């Protein structure tokens, strides 16, 4: 039985987005809603897990000089699978995520985990490592998506949660929340909260 605890790091203490600063790039734009953030998180977790697995299986046969190209091609092939799957079964969602599904290819979490973990480890640990890193990433996206949707549109998973009586009393949705800058500021605030609870992560600059 493998120890699952060892792989839980990415969920908080070693979170790829808010601690290691990996993979912020392609994702913040999809966090205007909870639903699209969750879909994006799942897609990344799937790609990260399986690319880690494949690279780990091939780790002894890939010449190290051309490993980046090999990794890119494997990740790109997996992303195409995810993209085609979304287009086939969740067409609206795939229209909404637009180019950001494709951009999973250049997501640094995936390349980073391949380089740092899958190249040295056995297939099963690599699969778990990829999966949990993807989930850690998905958690951050989902949190940002949750607040942006709740405060920006007053809905959650496309269902209205703020009652009409609030609006009658003069409550207004904060449209600023749906604009790009707030995603960055929210992440900044998340880092702030996270670091004040985990003192050892504080940077001395």
């Amino acid at each position, binding site marked *: 039985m493998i120890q699952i605890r060892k792989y839980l790091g990415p969920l908080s203490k070693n979170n790829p987005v808010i601690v290691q600063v990996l993979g*912020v790039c*392609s994702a913040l734009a999809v966090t205007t809603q909870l639903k699209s953030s969750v879909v994006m998180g799942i897609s990344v977790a799937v790609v990260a897990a399986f690319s880690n697995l494949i690279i780990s299986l091939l780790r002894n046969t890939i010449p190290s000089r051309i490993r980046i190209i090999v990794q*890119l091609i494997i990740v790109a092939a997996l992303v195409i699978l995810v993209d085609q799957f979304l287009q086939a079964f969740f067409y609206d969602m795939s229209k909404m995520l637009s180019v950001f599904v494709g951009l999973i290819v250049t997501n640094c979490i995936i390349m980073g985990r391949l380089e740092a973990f899958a190249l040295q480890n056995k297939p099963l640990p690599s699969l778990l490592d990829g999966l949990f890193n993807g989930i850690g990433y998905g958690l951050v996206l989902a949190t940002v998506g949750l607040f942006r949707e709740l405060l920006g549109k007053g809905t959650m998973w496309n269902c209205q949660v703020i009652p009409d009586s609030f609006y009658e009393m003069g409550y207004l949705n904060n449209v600023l929340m749906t604009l790009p800058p707030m995603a960055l*500021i929210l992440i900044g605030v998340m880092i702030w909260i996270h670091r004040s609870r985990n003192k050892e992560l504080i940077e001395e600059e």
Partner: protein
Amino acid sequence: MEFLGDLFIRSIFVENMIFAYFLGMCSYLAVSKNVNTSLGLGAAVCFVLVITVPINYLINHYLLKPGALAWISPQLSEVNLSFLSLIVFIAVIASIVQLLEMIIERISSQLYNALGIFLPLIAVNCAILGASLFMQERNFSSIGESFTYAAGSGIGWLIAIVAFAAIRERIRYSNIPKPLRGLGISYITTGLMALGFMAFLGM
């Protein structure tokens, strides 16, 4: 011409790669500790964008998009290879970056010293792949258009990273709450800069 100018300005300010789409955030946060290195990285991104986007445009236009193969023979006009675009784009970008690195090393050691270390980083910079994918999604109608778009978004990225590096150099001297230091304040600063850039909306 007016249209191209419009596209150029829009891709620099309104649809800024970093502030509107968060593309290339990783290297933006990692390589912005001082103005000179960020200038080097920004210039390298600009350079690679201007070369790869038009090439990917040609590939997309003549090989990949639905019906693009009609110029070879009419029987092929039904073929749609666009699902391959992602893998082709990333391969083109990776190989061009490699090629550029070798060419620059050969012709100008000065330029190589300035840009060289950043080139490998760029192959996995989302801004580059993002620009190619946006080019495909928005169906640009000519190579001039995709060139203008690439130049505009490259310059936009350059402006963003240089401005951010300059702010970051100053932030070092301010008294920030401890847990917010470093990464946290960088995000919030970027958010505030993005708010500033939003003023260009509707121009």
